[in-house]
């Protein structure tokens, strides 16, 4: 399991009810179910991935987060997880609002466009950056709204969303992000993980 999922799992207490939005093949869901007795549900757009989840015995709903989150009642989950998908929505702001409506808390992770390798790639090669967390070419990437850790940090603050914890992830190392180290973390982390509440 990738380190990102381990960090997410560590943020969630045992016996909670969790919705994994864009749960893919259910790796995180399975881990949470087996190790933390989490009552876990998934929402996934890909039919193939939904089948993989079913094969793992996971409860998953085939659907699109932009349209299908509205069916869940307010605060019906303790946590709603959105891993590296926010930037791929047509309207990320709307999705973020929905995550915080459906979940008492939300865990959102974003690939950091401010990561130094991304900056160097664009600066020196003059082509769209390709990294471990941004593996696709400009013409086939699902990402529509790339942002940096700093962008996201400011964005949630401007929306009066409370940040409980923000973590910068670089390979195997995770570290706390705060106002004072934001510039540094924004340069050296390829992934940002945010535990938020509205």
């Amino acid at each position, binding site marked *: 399991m990738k380190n990102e999922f381990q960090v997410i799992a560590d943020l969630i207490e045992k016996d909670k009810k969790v919705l994994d939005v864009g749960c893919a093949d259910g790796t995180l869901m399975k881990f949470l179910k087996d190790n933390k007795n989490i009552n876990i*549900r998934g929402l996934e757009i890909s*039919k193939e991935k*939904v*089948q993989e989840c*079913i*094969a*793992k*015995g*996971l*409860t*998953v*709903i*085939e*659907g699109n987060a932009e349209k299908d989150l509205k*069916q*869940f*009642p307010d605060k*019906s989950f303790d946590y709603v997880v959105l891993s590296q998908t926010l930037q791929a929505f047509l309207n990320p702001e709307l999705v973020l609002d929905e995550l915080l409506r459906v979940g008492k808390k939300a865990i959102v992770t974003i690939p950091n466009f401010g990561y130094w390798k991304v900056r160097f790639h664009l600066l020196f090669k003059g082509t769209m950056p390709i990294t471990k967390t941004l593996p696709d070419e400009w013409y086939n990437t699902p990402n529509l709204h790339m942002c940096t850790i700093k962008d996201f940090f400011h964005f949630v603050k401007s929306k009066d969303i409370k940040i409980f914890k923000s973590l910068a992830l670089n390979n195997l190392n995770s570290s706390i992000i705060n106002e004072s180290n934001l510039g540094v973390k924004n340069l050296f982390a390829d992934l940002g993980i945010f535990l938020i509440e509205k």
Partner: protein
Amino acid sequence: MNTETKIKTLIVKKPLKLDCGKTIKDFPIAYETYGSLNSKKDNAILVFHALTGDQFVTGINPVTKKEGWWSYAVGPDKAIDTNKYFVICSNVIGGCMGSYGPSHKDPDQKIFGTNFPVITINDMVNAQYNLLDHFGIDKLFSITGGSMGGMQVLQFISNFPNKSKTVIPIATTSSHSAQNIAFNELGRQAITADSNWKDGNYTSKNTNPGKGLAVARMAAHITYLSKKGLQEKFGRKLQEREDLKFGFDADFQIESYLRYQGSVFVDRFDANSYLYITRAMDYFDLAKQFKGNLSDAFINTKAKFFIISFTSDWLYPTQENKDIVIALNSIGADVGFVEIESDKGHDSFLLDVPDFLSALKNFLDKSYEEN
């Protein structure tokens, strides 16, 4: 061996009050089982059949000598694995494979015909509930069925919220749409317009409204397929001829195919049963039973739901299946949902659609492991 001896029957002694107000008692429920009930009695799956199905789910149907209607899904090592599970299926009341229906005799020994009480999906599941007592099953492992079978699944878990661990409605709806009712009405009109129908008394008059019933089946059969599926299978191919004949014989393969479907159906199905069962489907509106709030139908159940629809099903389209998912999610029920890619239309659930069969198998087997 005559037909009667091949059909297992439970005589329900307990009176059953029907939605129409009448009460029936001492009536037969014809059923079949596959696999064996384990000692804990926790491996039973109740399968509900669709409009023209019967209790003979898999293997060779001893009456029609044809493959059972769900042979792709049910059997040893199949999606519903009869090595593992005990499968029970019964003929719905109103049907014509041994359960109490319009071809049965009334207490005065006259064939009911249209004097048989109008039955509903609710009546069907209340009648079938007696099978649990018969087998001494406190709680089923699963209930499943497609189309009208799915409607029975929804009604059953609403009526008996603690009686199944898992619930699998397939290609179905919680409320029959105007289009569904329209197609059923077309079928009923075809039957009653046949002069041999004789106001439903065709048996005593030694006739059979076969032509009307065949037309009803032909019209319905089109709704079970998709435009793409029909086009790919038949296109404009001609039936055993080089060119058009400039007449009204079956020039096209699709015509010949439909005529065949109509004719074989007449051999195995009763026209009055077709009227009764389509009526039951039309009357089905689960939300209406709960003052318009579908969620309330499921408020008392802890069962785990898995809902399946098919991309090319325009009779019970994905959205109608999703409406059930939405109703369940709004009360925090445990519900999974998948739409299976298939060109085979509504009939997909009866056919060899590997993604469907593997999803069904995985859901059942994984849920059973957690048992």
